[in-house]
């Protein structure tokens, strides 16, 4: 059930109505029922997967937590040697089961394809056949969300939930089930399980957020998607400046698609009185790739930082490596080696998490490379800024940094667009070899499945997004608008609704585009 389908709107209407009609103490149970219904509609078999993840993590987290709770009863030494090791074994088992499910369902065919390539490379004629494996909707998201709970319980940051069904709701909460954000139990439980009274202001604010999400998804993302797919489908036809156009289009599509989906998620949760963390903070205004990743898909970045980067950095082998590198490479470089290596692992896994393909892995490692190179060049930047101190505060320089980051991001992202990595490099090459800049103004862009009218709508949409983003720096735009007179608010919100209704790419004649992040 797509977020932008009539069925989903109907589903929400029934849920919202019944949610505020039943006693508050039962609201979370209704949410659980609707979340499982949502997942059941997506695919009845998927329920087995999510139920397995829920049950195993709940079970192991409780076991681990029981040890933590009885910590005082144990002798300190006994706890450190025996109990900690028991806790670790339980954690390992839970990880093995759940990452195993994720790996088998999502990465088996990738592994087979790689094994086949390897066999071909060594001259073997035998090949493994690809398997027909179900990949449950949103498995990467709900597995990571459930694992964050397991890690937090293991670390003692939170206590294990004693009610299985409450935990089941945390894992399956439908608005964020298929594209995040990856919430933490400690944050979400504050509002997820408590009763909520009907609050017209909050509901109207949630609905406005949903509408804004619909605008981004239907008017912008699904409109420009035609142009993106045309350019990447025929790389032989669309080289040179088209590659640049494709990168720009994809940047816009991905932003409108993903942030639009998250707007719908947060808006739905808000209508239900539940606070879901923001996943974006105006990412295209970032001045470096490192900053970009703190502002784009924030919950995923934080997940990898908290549960991969830090544990790997302080792990025993890494500490040993740190010692060795300081001794052999000097203090300055030796200190950075383990961090860079941990970072490498994080970006490799980030790429792999996004998709079972080398495109994503190379994309992840390209991000790592840019971040590491920037870090290495930092002394140089600092010297430069010392020589030109006035430059740093200048708007034009900030604009340059934003543009530079955006362009870099576009280049890195093109790994996710084209069929494979060599084609991506080849297309970058055509940007130098093919002299066809004129396509930017000679009308050729109208041959990409987008008419002039589409470009006008897209232009307006981009301006609106930029305006909203600039306004957001001073605080939430909805709050700002809520201070305006009734008829001003009505014209603005009803105008936005009509824009979605008229200019939205939905219905017969349009392909119902899945949200891009649903596929992860």
């Amino acid at each position: 059930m797509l977020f932008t389908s009539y069925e989903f709107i109907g589903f929400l209407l029934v849920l919202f109505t019944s949610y505020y009609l039943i006693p508050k103490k039962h609201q979370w149970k209704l949410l659980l029922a609707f979340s499982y219904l949502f997942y059941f509609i997506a695919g009845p078999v998927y329920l087995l997967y999510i139920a397995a993840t829920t049950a195993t993590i709940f079970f192991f987290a409780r076991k681990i937590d029981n040890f933590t709770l009885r910590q005082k009863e144990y002798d300190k030494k006994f706890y450190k040697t025996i109990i900690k090791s028991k806790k670790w074994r339980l954690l390992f088992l839970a990880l093995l089961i759940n990452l195993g499910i994720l790996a088998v369902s999502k990465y088996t065919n990738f592994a087979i394809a790689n094994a086949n390539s390897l066999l071909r490379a060594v001259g073997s004629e035998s090949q493994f056949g690809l398997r027909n494996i179900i990949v449950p909707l949103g498995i990467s998201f709900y597995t990571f969300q459930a694992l964050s709970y397991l890690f937090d319980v293991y670390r003692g940051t939170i206590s294990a939930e004693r009610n299985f069904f409450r935990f089941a709701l945390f894992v399956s909460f439908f608005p964020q089930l298929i594209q995040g954000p990856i919430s933490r139990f400690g944050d979400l439980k504050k509002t997820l399980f408590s009763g909520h009274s009907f609050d017209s202001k909050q509901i109207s604010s949630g609905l406005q957020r949903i509408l804004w999400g619909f605008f981004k998804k239907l008017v912008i993302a699904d409109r420009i998607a035609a142009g993106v797919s045309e350019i990447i489908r025929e790389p032989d036809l669309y080289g040179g400046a088209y590659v640049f156009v494709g990168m720009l289009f994809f940047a816009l599509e991905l932003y409108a698609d993903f942030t639009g989906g998250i707007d719908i998620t947060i808006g739905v949760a808000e209508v239900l009185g539940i606070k879901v963390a923001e996943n974006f903070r105006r990412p295209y205004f970032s001045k470096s790739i490192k900053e970009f990743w703190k502002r784009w898909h924030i919950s995923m970045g934080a997940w990898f930082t908290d549960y991969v980067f830090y544990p790997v950095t302080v792990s025993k082998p890494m500490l040993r490596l740190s010692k060795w590198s300081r001794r052999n490479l000097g203090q300055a470089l030796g200190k950075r080696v383990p961090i860079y290596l941990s970072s490498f692992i994080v970006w490799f896994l980030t790429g792999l998490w996004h998709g079972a393909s080398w495109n994503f892995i190379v994309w992840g490692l390209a991000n790592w490379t840019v971040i590491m190179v920037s870090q290495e060049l930092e002394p140089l930047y600092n010297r430069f800024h010392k020589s030109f101190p006035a430059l740093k505060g200048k708007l034009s320089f900030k604009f340059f940094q934003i543009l530079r980051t955006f362009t870099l991001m576009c280049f890195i992202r093109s790994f996710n667009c084209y069929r494979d990595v060599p084609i991506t490099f080849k297309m970058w090459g055509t940007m130098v070899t093919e002299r066809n800049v004129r396509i930017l103004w000679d009308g050729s862009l109208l041959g990409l499945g987008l008419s002039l009218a589409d470009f006008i709508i897209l232009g307006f949409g981009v301006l609106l997004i930029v305006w909203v983003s600039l306004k957001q720096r001073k605080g939430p735009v909805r709050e700002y608008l809520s201070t305006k007179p009734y008829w001003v608010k009505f014209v603005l919100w009803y105008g936005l609704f009509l824009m979605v209704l008229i200019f939205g790419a939905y219905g017969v004649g349009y392909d119902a585009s899945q949200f891009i992040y649903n596929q992860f």
Partner: protein
Amino acid sequence: MKNDTRVTYTRLIATILIIVSTLFLLTRLMMPKYDIGVTEGALVAEYYDEIKDHDLIFIGDCEVYDNFSPAVLWQDYGINSYIRGSAQQLAWQSYYLLEDTLYHEKPAVVIFNVLSLMYNEPQREAYNRMSLEGMRWTPAKVRAISSSMMGSEHFLDYVFPLLRYHSRWKELDVTDFTRIFTRDKVSHNGFFINVGVRPAINVPEGRILGNYDFGEKAMAYLDKMTALCRENGIELILVKAPSLYPYWYDEWEEQVKAYAQAHDLKYLNFLALIEETGLDFMTDTYNAGLHLNLSGAEKITHYLGEFLLNNTSLADRRGEASLRAEWEKKLAAYDQEVERKRGEEE
């Protein structure tokens, strides 16, 4: 306090009025203006402008609205008839249009053109739209939509056509704005006048089919139509208009004949009556044998008129003053339209 409440209610009512009226206007604006475009889409809706006192209703696809002239049936035989046909109208759509008709009137005779029995599945969304959009909202329309939708269609798109036609914003022109509330009549009691001539030369033979049996769904709706007519004391007559294409197979003919015999229905296959009707496919068709032109339609309507007066309960009603007055206006419009179209052809 009281004042505040009044302001709130006034604002609420004003808001609702603005929303409803803008959505209504936008829907009217975005909907295709069939009467000046694909005119076949305007046919079904025109029925509701009629005085519902017809003795005979034709139902079927293009083979009825192009091939039979109610004006001739009235002028020469005193039969008051109407054609409820639209482009590629499927058997189940014909059935529900008949149900819809019965909400308004009970004719003595219904003529169903059997070509649509060849389709057991909906063919194209555009044809569905042309057949269903003009229907007024009744349970019959709901069932007609439900039974006709293609995989890509959604019921809500029929309830709120703006959801379907919103994408027309790119192709709006001046006429869309000037004709929000007006539409011209395009048919004459459901008959669509064509005066052009394009002889039928080299009509292709029918290709060999894997299975010549009519589909279950189509036949089930023919059964329902037969039962509905019987329940309402209406005589159902099956016809096959003399269109040379789509090819009418002998196997299909046999099935219709057998059905008519089994259910005691009259059946006229005009393809077998070329000599009797005097049809000449060099002069009587406007698109090489697919449909008849005015001359061809008038020829077979004459044959049908004679047949109906001699073989059914239908009687000459030209003696009824009010009906005659009504028809005089219609005949004048009919003649005027024929003249106009002939002028255009020349």
